[in-house]
C-alpha cells in the first residue's frame, strides 16, 4: 500500500509524521543513517556517485529542487540519480523535507515570491511524476488516489473554477467534467444522488466509473495539493511575523534560493528553455495556417491575421519557441539584445505578408505598423526602439481555438495538427523543429 502522505504531505497522516519525527531543527544537518539506508535499498537507484545520495534532511530538500530544475530543462529524462524521490520507502523523510522546504521559504520569502511559486509547482510536478511511476501498479495507484481525494473533498467541495488554469492550458477539458451547480461531481454517492434515477438502460455504477475517470481525479488532487501547499506557505509566513524566525530555517532558505537560481541562469543564457533554442526560421516547418497567412489575406480580417496572429507567431518561433514550456517571461531584448534579428528577419517577413494582402494592409492602414510594434512589446510607437520596450506586452502566439473562431478560413488542420491535438500553431513548429 502506498502511504497517503507520499502523495499528499499535508494529509493527516503527513501531519502526524511531522509531529512525531520532525521536531528537532537542530539535527536536520546531521547525517541520517536511516535515510541513507532506505535510499540504498531502492533497487532502481543510481549509486555510482556518492553525491547522488542525500545524507540528511537538508540534502533531501535541495535534491528535490535540483530534480525540479533539471527536469525543467530536460522533461523526458527519467534521471536515475533521483529514483529515490519516486519510491514510497522515503515517505517519512520526504514529508519532513516538504515541511522544512515550505517553512523556510514561507518565513524568508513570503507567499508571493518566486521561490514560493517554484515550490508549489515543484510539489505539483513531483506528485504528477510519482503517480506516473505508479502506473505499473494501477490498483495501488487508484487506491491511494481515492484515499487522498476522499480526505480532500470531505473538507471542500471542488468548484470547476478552481481548475481555470488547467482548463486554459488544455490539461482538462471542461467537457470532461461532470458538473452540478458549479461543483465537480467526484464522489460516487453524490453522483448516484443526482443522476441515478435519470440513467435509463445502463448501470449507474458503470456510468460512474466511465465518467468520473482516474485522470480527472489525479489532476484534481494534484491541483488541490498545490493549492493547499500555497495556503500552507502563506500561513507560515503570517505566523512568522509574530515570532523570531529560526536561524536554521533562514539559512536553508538561502540554500534553496541558490539552488533555484540555477534555473534562472539557465534561462537568461539566451536559450529559451526546453531543448529548443532560438534559431533562424525555417518556413518549411510552419503549420498550414501560418503558410496560408504568409500568402496574404485576400478577404476580410487582414489586421487580425497580420497583427494578432502572424506577428506573435513569427517572433516567438524565431526567438522563444519554447515559451509555453517555461515559466520565465522574456522580453525580445533578452534574446535579441540589439534587435538585429527582429528588424532584419522578423519584421520583413511580417511586412511581406501584409503587402501580399488585397488590398495591401499598409496602403489604407499604415497605423497597423505601430500595432505590430506594440505586439512585440515596444509600446505604441512608429519606431522599434529599446527605450520603449516593456510599455506593452510581447503577445504570445494565438491558440488553435482562437484561430478557428476568429479566422476559420486559415485553419486547415493536417495530420500533424491532429496528432498534436490542435492546441497552438507554435507546437507544430516546435515539433517539426525537434525532428
Amino acid at each position, binding site marked *: 500500500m502506498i502511504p497517503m502522505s507520499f502523495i499528499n504531505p499535508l494529509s493527516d497522516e503527513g501531519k502526524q509524521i511531522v509531529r512525531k519525527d520532525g521536531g528537532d531543527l537542530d539535527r536536520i544537518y546531521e547525517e541520517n543513517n536511516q535515510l541513507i539506508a532506505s535510499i540504498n535499498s531502492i533497487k532502481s537507484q543510481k549509486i555510482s556517485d556518492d553525491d547522488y545520495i542525500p545524507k540528511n534532511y537538508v540534502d533531501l530538500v535541495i535534491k528535490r529542487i535540483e530534480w525540479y530544475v533539471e527536469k525543467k530543462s530536460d522533461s523526458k529524462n527519467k534521471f536515475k540519480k533521483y529514483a529515490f524521490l519516486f519510491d514510497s520507502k522515503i515517505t517519512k523523510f520526504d514529508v519532513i523535507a516538504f515541511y522544512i522546504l515550505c517553512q523556510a521559504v514561507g518565513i524568508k520569502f513570503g507567499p508571493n515570491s518566486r521561490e514560493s511559486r517554484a515550490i508549489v509547482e515543484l510539489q505539483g510536478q513531483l506528485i504528477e511524476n510519482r503517480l506516473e511511476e505508479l502506473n505499473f501498479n*494501477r490498483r495501488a495507484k487508484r487506491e491511494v488516489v481515492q484515499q487522498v481525494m476522499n480526505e480532500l473533498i470531505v473538507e471542500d467541495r471542488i*468548484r*470547476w*473554477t478552481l481548475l*481555470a488554469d488547467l*482548463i*486554459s*492550458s*488544455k490539461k482538462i*477539458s*471542461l*467537457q*470532461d*467534467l*461532470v*458538473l*452540478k*451547480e*458549479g*461543483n465537480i*461531481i467526484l464522489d460516487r454517492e453524490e453522483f448516484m444522488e*443526482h*443522476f441515478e434515477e*435519470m*440513467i*435509463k*438502460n*445502463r448501470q449507474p455504477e*458503470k*456510468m460512474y*466509473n*466511465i*465518467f468520473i*475517470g482516474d485522470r480527472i481525479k489525479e489532476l484534481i488532487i494534484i491541483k488541490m495539493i498545490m493549492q493547499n501547499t500555497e495556503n500552507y506557505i502563506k500561513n507560515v509566513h503570517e505566523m512568522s511575523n509574530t515570532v523570531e524566525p529560526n536561524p536554521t530555517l533562514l539559512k536553508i532558505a538561502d540554500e534553496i534560493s541558490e539552488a533555484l537560481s540555477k534555473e534562472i541562469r539557465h534561462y537568461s543564457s539566451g536559450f529559451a528553455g526546453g531543448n529548443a533554442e532560438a534559431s533562424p526560421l525555417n518556413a518549411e516547418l510552419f503549420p498550414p495556417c501560418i503558410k496560408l497567412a504568409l500568402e496574404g489575406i485576400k478577404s476580410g480580417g487582414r489586421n487580425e491575421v497580420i497583427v494578432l496572429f502572424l506577428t506573435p507567431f513569427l517572433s516567438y518561433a524565431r526567438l522563444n519557441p519554447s515559451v509555453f514550456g517555461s515559466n520565465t517571461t522574456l522580453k525580445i531584448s533578452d534574446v535579441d539584445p540589439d534587435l538585429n534579428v527582429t528588424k532584419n528577419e522578423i519584421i520583413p517577413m511580417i511586412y511581406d505578408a501584409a503587402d501580399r494582402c488585397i488590398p495591401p494592409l499598409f496602403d489604407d492602414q499604415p497605423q497597423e505598423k505601430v500595432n505590430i510594434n506594440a505586439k512585440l512589446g515596444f509600446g505604441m510607437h512608429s519606431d522599434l526602439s529599446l527605450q520603449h520596450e516593456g510599455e506593452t506586452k510581447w503577445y504570445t502566439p494565438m*491558440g488553435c*481555438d*482562437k484561430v478557428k*473562431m*476568429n479566422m476559420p478560413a486559415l485553419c486547415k488542420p493536417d495530420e500533424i495538427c491532429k496528432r498534436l491535438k490542435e492546441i497552438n500553431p507554435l507546437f507544430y513548429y516546435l515539433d517539426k523543429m525537434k525532428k
Partner: protein
Amino acid sequence: MEMFKPATLEERRIYYREEWDIKQVSDFISNSIENREFGFDHFGKGPNDRYKVFNTPDYLKRFLKSKTPFAAYCSVAFYEKPRRRKGWIKSELVFDVDAKDIPIRTCGCDDVCEICLREAKEIVEGLIDTLKGDLGLKDIHLIYSGRGYHIRIFDADVMIMDSDVRSQILKYVVGADLPKDKYDDDNGIYNLEHFSIPFGYPWVFTQRVKYAINHLTVDSKLEDVNGKLLKDVLTNRNLLERNQWGLFKTNIGPVRYKKVIKAITSLNMSLVDAKVTIDLKRILRLPSSLHSKVSMRCTEVKNIDTFDPFEDAVPGFVWERNE
C-alpha cells in the same frame, strides 16, 4: 406605429432629454462607472469616440443629454486607468445572441422580427439554464440589446478568467463540440450516444440538438444534409418530444444521423457571437441607451418570463410616430 425604423436626430433628442433617466442605467454599470471605458457613435458610423471615462453617473447623464448620441457603449472590462485601457482588473463574461445571426430561425426574415426575437429569448433561456445548473454561476444579468440579448455575468471567479477558458465555457454552453461516443474503463470500450447520457456536457449537447431540430424548416441549410435527409428529419422529429432518440436515429439511419448532428454542432457555434465572449476588452451597448438603427431601448430584463421587447423596450416617441 412603425417599428424598427431608424430614429431621427429629433427623436434621439426627445428620447434622451424627456424620456431617459440616469436611474435606468443598470447598477452594475453605475457602481463601477469610474473603472469602465465608454464609447459613442455620434453619426451612425460605428463607435469612433472611445476611451471616454465618467467618474460619476452624473457626468454620464450630462454627456448623454447634451450629445444625444446615435449609440452608446460601455466596456465589459474594469480598468485601473480606463482612459488608456490600462491596468486591466477583470471583465464580465458575456454572451451576445443577436436575433439576426441565429443559425436556425423559423421566420425566414431578412433582419429581425417578432418571431426570431422570441427564438433568441428561448436560446438565451437555455444558455442561462446551463450557466446556472452546470457551471453554478449566480450573478447573471440579462439585457435586451435592441435586436437580441446580452447575458452579462459578474461572478468573481469567472471575471478574472482568460479568453481560453471563456472560449471553452462558450463551447460547453452552446454545444459546439461533438461529444465523444466511445468511453473506456478497465473492462473495455463502450459506445455511448450523447442522448443516453443524462448529465454533463453530453446532456447539454442533447438539449441544443433537440432545440435545433425542432426549429428546422424545409428551407433550412445544413452542411452536408440534402433535401431528402432534411425531410426525413422533419417527419421524424416528433419522436424527440418523447425523447425517443434511439428510434429517431434508427429511422433516419445511423450514418445520416451523424451527418445531421455534425451539421448542427457547427451551427451551434454561431448561436452566440464568439468574438464578443472571448474579447476581454469589448464594449457593449449601454443598458437604457437608444438603439437608433431600430428605435429600441437597450433594456435590462428583470423578469425573463414576462419580458416582451415590444412592450418593454419601445421608446415613447415610437408610439407617437403615426399621428
